[in-house]
C-alpha cells in the first residue's frame, strides 16, 4: 500500500506541494471556513436547506467511514441507525413533549443497543454475512416503522420541534455539530483503537495473532458508526420536522456508501469531499436524474477497478517516508 502510493505519487514539485497541502490539517480548516462563510454568499431558504442536508450527509458519511473505511466492515443498512435516531427523537419529542435536545441521550442508548443487537451475532462471521444482514436490518427498521402506530405508520411523524429558531441558526448549529463529529471520527481513527481497526481491516488473522481482540474492536467500530448515524438522524428530524419511512430506503444507505468509497475509504477529508459531491450533484444535474443512479453504480465498479483507494486516499502517518 505505502510502496504503491510512493511510486505512484506526484512527481513534480508542484504535485508534491499540492499533496502536502492536502495532507496537512489546513484542508479541514479551509473546508470549515467555507461552510461558515457560505450563508454570506447565498442565503436563500432553498440554498440553506440544501447546505444543511449536505452537512447532515457529511455526518452520515463520516460515521459510515468508521465502519467501512477504518475497520473494513461493509454495512449496507447504515440508514437503519439514521432512522433509529430520527424516530427515537421524533417519538419522544412529539408523544412525550420532550425538547429535542433532551432526547439525545435516549438516541445514543437506542443506537448503541441496536448496534450491539445486530453486530454481536454477525461480527463473529465472515464479513459478507455482515453486509447482507445489515441490508436486511435496514429493511426491518423501515418496514417496522411503517407498521407500528407509535411511529405514525406509513405517514410518519410530523410536528417535531426544532433545535433552534430560524434556518440560518440551524445551519450554523449543524455545521458545528457535524465538524465536531468529523473531527471526533478522525481522532478516533488515529487513537489506539483506530490503529486496531486498521490492523483488522488489513489482516484480521494477523491482528488476532498480535493480541488484538478483533471481535470487540469490530463491535466498537460498528457501535461508534451506529451512534454517529443516530445523531445525524436527530439533526435530520430537527431540520425537516417530519419523518416518514420513505426517507430511510436502501437508496440512502447506498448513497452514503458511495460517498465513502468515492472519497477514499478511511480518509477523512476524502469522505467529507465525497459526501458533499454526492449530496450536491443531484441539484446540479437535475436533468439527468434518470441516469444519475445508473452512473453512480457504474462509478462504484470503475473506482474499485481503477482506483480502489478512492479519489483522495488516506496516507498513513506511520508509513510516511
Amino acid at each position: 500500500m505505502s510502496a504503491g502510493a510512493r511510486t505512484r505519487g506526484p512527481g513534480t514539485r508542484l504535485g508534491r506541494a499540492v499533496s502536502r497541502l492536502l495532507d496537512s490539517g489546513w484542508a479541514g480548516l479551509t473546508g470549515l471556513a467555507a461552510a461558515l462563510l457560505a450563508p454570506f454568499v447565498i442565503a436563500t431558504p432553498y440554498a440553506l436547506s440544501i447546505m444543511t442536508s449536505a452537512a447532515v450527509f457529511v455526518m452520515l458519511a463520516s460515521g459510515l467511514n468508521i465502519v467501512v473505511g477504518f475497520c473494513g466492515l461493509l454495512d449496507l443498512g447504515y440508514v437503519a441507525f439514521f432512522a433509529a435516531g430520527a424516530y427515537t427523537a421524533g417519538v419522544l419529542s412529539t408523544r412525550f413533549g420532550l425538547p429535542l435536545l433532551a432526547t439525545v441521550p435516549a438516541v445514543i442508548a437506542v443506537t448503541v443497543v441496536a448496534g450491539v443487537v445486530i453486530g454481536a451475532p454477525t461480527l463473529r462471521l465472515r464479513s459478507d454475512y455482515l453486509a447482507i444482514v445489515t441490508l436486511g436490518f435496514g429493511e426491518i427498521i423501515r418496514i417496522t416503522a411503517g407498521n407500528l402506530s407509535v411511529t405514525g405508520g406509513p405517514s410518519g411523524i410530523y410536528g417535531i420541534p426544532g433545535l433552534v429558531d430560524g434556518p440560518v441558526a440551524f445551519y450554523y448549529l449543524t455545521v458545528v455539530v457535524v465538524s465536531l463529529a468529523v473531527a471526533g471520527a478522525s481522532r478516533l481513527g488515529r487513537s489506539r483503537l483506530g490503529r486496531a481497526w486498521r490492523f483488522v481491516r488489513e489482516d484480521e488473522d494477523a491482528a488476532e495473532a498480535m493480541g488484538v481482540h478483533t471481535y470487540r474492536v469490530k463491535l466498537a467500530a460498528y457501535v461508534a458508526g451506529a451512534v454517529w448515524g443516530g445523531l445525524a438522524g436527530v439533526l435530520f428530524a430537527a431540520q425537516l420536522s417530519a419523518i416518514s419511512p420513505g426517507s430511510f430506503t436502501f437508496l440512502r444507505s447506498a448513497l452514503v456508501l458511495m460517498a465513502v468509497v468515492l472519497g477514499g475509504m478511511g480518509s477523512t477529508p476524502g469522505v467529507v469531499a465525497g459526501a458533499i459531491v454526492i449530496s450536491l450533484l443531484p441539484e446540479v444535474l437535475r436533468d439527468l436524474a434518470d441516469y444519475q443512479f445508473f452512473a453512480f453504480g457504474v462509478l462504484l465498479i470503475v473506482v474499485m477497478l481503477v482506483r480502489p483507494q478512492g479519489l483522495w486516499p488516506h496516507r498513513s502517518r506511520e508509513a510516511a517516508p
Partner: protein
Amino acid sequence: MSQLIWNGLFVGSFYALVALGYTMVYGVMKLLNFAHGDLYMLGAFTGFAVLGAAGGVPPGMALPALLGVLVVTMAVTGLAGVALERVAYRPLRAAPRLSLLITAVGASFALEYGMRAVAGAEPRVYPVRLGGSAAEVLGARITVQQIALVVVAVLLMTGLNLLVTRTREGRAMRAIALDPRTSALMGINVDAVISRTFFLGSALAGAAGVMAGAYYGKIDFLMGFLIGLKAFTAAVIGGIGNIPGTMLGGLLLGLLESFGTWWLGGQWRDVFAFGVLILFLTVRPTGLLGERVTERV
C-alpha cells in the same frame, strides 16, 4: 392449513431457484453476488420484451409460449451473468474482499437504475397471465398453472443437481469450490468454469424472473432487491454453498413465511423472514446442511 403449506411450497420453489445461483457462485468464488436478484429482474424484463416483440399470444397457448420465452430468457440472463463476472468480478479476484463486495453493490445499482432508464419507473403488466381454474386438493386451492410452474422449477433444480454431481463439468466446479489453486494445477481451466457457473446461476435466476412475472403479472425495476435478500436468507437457512441444502432452505423459508404471514399478518412478512435470517446466523451460521468450514490463513 394445507392451503398455507401449498402457498409456502409454491413461493419456496421460487426462492430455491433464485437461491441456487447465490449458492453456486458462493461455492466456487466465495463471493456474495449482490447483483443476483437484479439478474432475476433482468430475466423478468427480458421475458416481457420477448413476449412484446412476438406480438400477442393466443389464449390457451400461454403455457407453451411461456416455456419458449423461458429458454430465450435463460440464455440472455446467463450471458449477462457471464459479462458481469468478466467485467466486474474477475479483475478483482485477488483484491481484498471488501472491494469485491463493493463492486457487487455497484453492479446491482447499475442494473436496477439502468433498467429504470430503459423501461421506466412504472411497474409493467405482463402480457401473459397465468391465472386459471383452481382445483381443490386436500382442502387447498391449487391451479394447474401453479403446478406447472412448480414442475418447471423442480425440473430445473433436478437438472442442475445432476449436472453438478454427475458430470465432468460439475466435478470441476466442486474441485474449484474446494481449492481453486490446486484445481488449476490439475489442469482445470478455472476462469472458464467460473464463467459457466455464473451462466448457470444467472440463467436460473432469469427463469425464476419470467415465472414470477407471468404468475404475479407485474414487474418493476426494484423487484429483484427483496427477492435477492430472501434468496440469500434461504441459502443461509439451508447452508450456503450446499445445493440440496439451498433447495431445502428455499422451501423452508417459503413455509415459514406462509405461516408467519398467517400468524402475524401480511405487513410483517418481510420482517419475519429477516428475523429468521438473523436468528439462524446467531444459532447455526452454517445452515441446516452446511458443514462447518474453518477459514484457512
